[in-house]
């Protein structure tokens, strides 16, 4: 960030001093003695594990806390010289914009133009001023073609942009974003971050962005705030943050920083460009491409899922559209497959068709049995006791597979997010197992939405356990004769590199790449891990692989 863009001397975009806050009836405070200051035009990244207080801090900055949620608050919070504890969200809306995680509840009008215009109308702006502001913000966010569309015909990414436009139309001095990329594919996620960077540089809007996938946005940030148990654990420049996270909480560090740390390089990079520059300084070049390691199918057994020329048609708002267009795919026992692609590429449709929720209009699909866990595990939980969800011996067997037999008497609402996800998986598995034998295919649709890295690591262990037939608790082998194939639709490239051995890349309903994980995730730009983008070596995608390469070359 250039110093020019940060208007020093002006009132801070956000100034928080000694802020303590507890939600109504909460057993412990959500914010503890939080103090920080964001200068006008500054881009600040808000890091931290799940439930560390990131969202609450954002809500306090826009007035939803305490005005909307209630609770007890002490301390001081000022937004562009307005007292956020005195003024309500409506009054603060002129100075601060807020974008939450779920875009569906972020729009309240029927058409895009009306949605963007609403805050100005509420403020009493004249029609001509409103028309100009709507036009300008639509142009800035590249959505003028959406203005006449109905909001319920938009994709998640489009809806996110419309909600952002409605937050920005009043020209606020500060914009707060709560994991805005969690539902976006890598392309749309990167576009959103660069859009924020551009707004920050050209409009001088200060940005406070909460995000789990730090590798996406650390390079764009001027400073980082790391929350720990409701308090500020770290506040400083990105490079210092990496040093801090490396020592204090490795779950918050980026893959490129881990790569450098494992390779013994001192200066931890804040992004791909920084890492490459550092490597050039150490004399590490780009060796000629070597052939990647081909991962053979784990066994030569018959496929457990076979799609041949599969076509699926769906109603996409305005008209019927072919979402899958002649998919050919074979899945064999024990494979761990990441199904990737842009939003709308057909990943969820393929899984839903395999699970029988949708019907193909042409082609052939054969599979033995499948258990599918959709994006929201809470949708599976309808009773107030785990044992009531999964009665009998078969229910107990499913609970054992996911390592939750100890929680049989618990209320699902009292379980942690990861445990709820495992319980939902057990509900999908129950009765589809024969003794210890898992269904032929276990599929998960976008299971990492809103997860921090620690929870993702737990999920990786679960997936490996299912595919390798290992008991989660005892780590001993189960007695199944055939391991399950695990297919996971995901946007998270780093997560895919952690669990998958094969990646199937979909684009507009067709398979555009299918091969070993190391080959696919190192052979592109968007669908590539940060380590692959730093090193640009075929087959090198994880920090561990990259560090081994670097250590060899640095010696």
């Amino acid at each position: 960030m250039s110093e020019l863009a940060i208007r020093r001397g002006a009132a801070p975009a956000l100034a928080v001093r000694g802020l303590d806050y507890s939600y109504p009836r909460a057993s412990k405070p959500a914010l503890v003695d939080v103090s920080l200051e964001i200068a006008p035009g500054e881009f600040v990244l808000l890091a931290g594990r799940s439930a560390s207080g990131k969202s609450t801090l954002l809500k306090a900055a826009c007035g939803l806390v305490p005005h909307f949620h209630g609770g007890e608050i002490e301390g001081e919070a000022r937004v562009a010289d307005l007292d956020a504890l005195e003024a309500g969200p409506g009054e603060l809306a002129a100075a601060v914009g807020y974008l939450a995680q779920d875009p569906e509840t972020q729009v309240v009008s029927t058409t895009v133009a009306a949605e963007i215009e609403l805050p100005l109308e509420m403020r009493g702006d004249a029609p001509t001023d409103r028309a100009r502001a709507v036009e300008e913000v639509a142009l800035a966010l590249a959505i003028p073609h959406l203005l006449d569309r109905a909001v319920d015909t938009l994709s998640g990414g489009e809806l996110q942009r419309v909600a952002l436009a409605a937050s920005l139309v009043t020209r606020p001095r500060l914009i707060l974003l709560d994991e805005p990329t969690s539902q976006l594919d890598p392309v749309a996620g990167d576009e959103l971050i660069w859009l924020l960077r551009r707004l920050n540089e050209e409009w001088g809007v200060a940005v406070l962005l909460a995000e789990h996938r730090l590798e996406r946005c650390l390079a764009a940030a001027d400073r980082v705030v790391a929350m720990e148990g409701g308090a500020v654990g770290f506040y400083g420049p990105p490079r210092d943050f990496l040093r801090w996270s490396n020592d204090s909480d490795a779950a918050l560090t980026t893959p490129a920083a881990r790569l450098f740390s494992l390779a013994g390089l001192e200066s931890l990079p804040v992004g791909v460009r920084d890492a490459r520059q550092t490597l050039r300084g150490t004399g590490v070049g780009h060796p000629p491409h070597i052939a990647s390691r081909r991962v053979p199918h784990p066994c030569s057994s018959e496929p457990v899922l076979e799609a041949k020329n599969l076509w699926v048609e769906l109603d996409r708002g305005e008209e019927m559209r072919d979402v899958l267009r002649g998919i050919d795919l074979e899945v064999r026992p024990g494979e761990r497959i990441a199904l990737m692609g842009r939003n709308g590429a057909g990943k969820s449709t393929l899984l839903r068709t395999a699970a029988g929720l949708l019907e193909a209009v042409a082609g052939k699909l054969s599979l033995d049995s499948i258990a599918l866990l959709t994006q929201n595990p809470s949708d599976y939980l309808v009773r107030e006791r785990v044992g009531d969800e999964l009665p009998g011996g078969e229910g107990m067997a499913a609970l054992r597979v996911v390592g939750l037999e100890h929680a049989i008497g618990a209320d699902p609402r009292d379980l942690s997010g990861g445990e709820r996800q495992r319980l939902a998986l057990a509900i999908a598995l129950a009765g589809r197992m024969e003794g210890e034998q898992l269904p032929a295919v276990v599929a998960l649709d976008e299971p990492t939405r809103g997860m921090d890295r620690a929870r993702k690591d737990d999920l990786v262990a679960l997936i490996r356990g299912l595919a390798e037939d290992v008991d989660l608790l005892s780590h001993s082998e189960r007695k199944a004769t055939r391991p399950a194939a695990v297919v996971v639709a995901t946007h998270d490239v780093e997560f895919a590199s952690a669990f998958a051995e094969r990646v199937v890349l979909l684009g507009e309903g067709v398979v555009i790449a299918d091969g070993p994980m190391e080959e696919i995730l190192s052979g592109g730009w968007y669908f590539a891990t940060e380590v692959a983008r730093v090193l640009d070596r075929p087959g090198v995608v994880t920090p561990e692989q990259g560090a081994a390469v670097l250590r060899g070359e640095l010696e």
Partner: protein
Amino acid sequence: MRSPFAYKPQRGPLQDASPGAAVAYLGAIVVVAFLYLNPLVLLAAGAAATMAGILAGARAAVRSALKMALSLALLIAVVNALVTSRGETVVARLGEWPLFGRVDITLEAIVAGISYGLLAAATIVAFAVYSACVDPDRVLRALRPLAGRSALTATLVSRLVPVAAADAGRLRDAAALRGPAAAPVGKAPLARRLLAGSLDRAVDVAATLELRGYSLDAPRARNRRSHSRYDRRFYAVAALVLATAIAGKILGADDFQSYPTVAIGFGPATLAVTAIVTLSGLAPFRRAMKRRPLPSRRPEVARV
């Protein structure tokens, strides 16, 4: 999947008209349906609503509404025929039925049922056209200065309906994906779960409304596009239809009797009301743009 009744932004006289004009026009058709029992006039009201929808480009809404309306009309006709034994022309004697007693199907009961069914059908089609063609944002904007709290509630509900529909779809999918040994999920637990989720969703939507400044007591700005060049047309047609309907009623155009024998009036007043109401369906008609023929371009001859 999008509801065929959902508002679809597009250009057209009915869509461009101010909410007041559109409501007056479609409301006049509904008023006719409620004022008259003569099946001929009711058919005219239904035809007007159907034509209006088709001319306004809401074919999908009209098609779905007609399917729903005709099913309902048929149901009303059948139920009325079964429960009413008045009328002199018995077309079938069905003997003694439990609960119903002696059931005689009369021509008069069938015709009376058809008349009620047509009333319901015309109303359903008119509401479908309203739903698909009139921008709810503009209606709420017009309502806000008059009744702020009602507008807030209506905004919240109008957003929650599609959100709850999406949630219900997801819950149904999750219920279908439960393993055969998991406890089955009936409609009651699903509804409970949906209700609990809807409350959370309502809080989120309400928070968004707060952030958009809905609670501000700022001066309400004048609305852009509050009037359109089609407003006069729709108000005039609405006034004509209402005046005709009232005058016709006074002059006996609603000449219809179902019991003890069927008598449907086809007098000049009835025919006039029928014709005017039917023609009112042409109000959303828009003339096609005339393309002026381009002047023929002859290659210019270079003069030497």
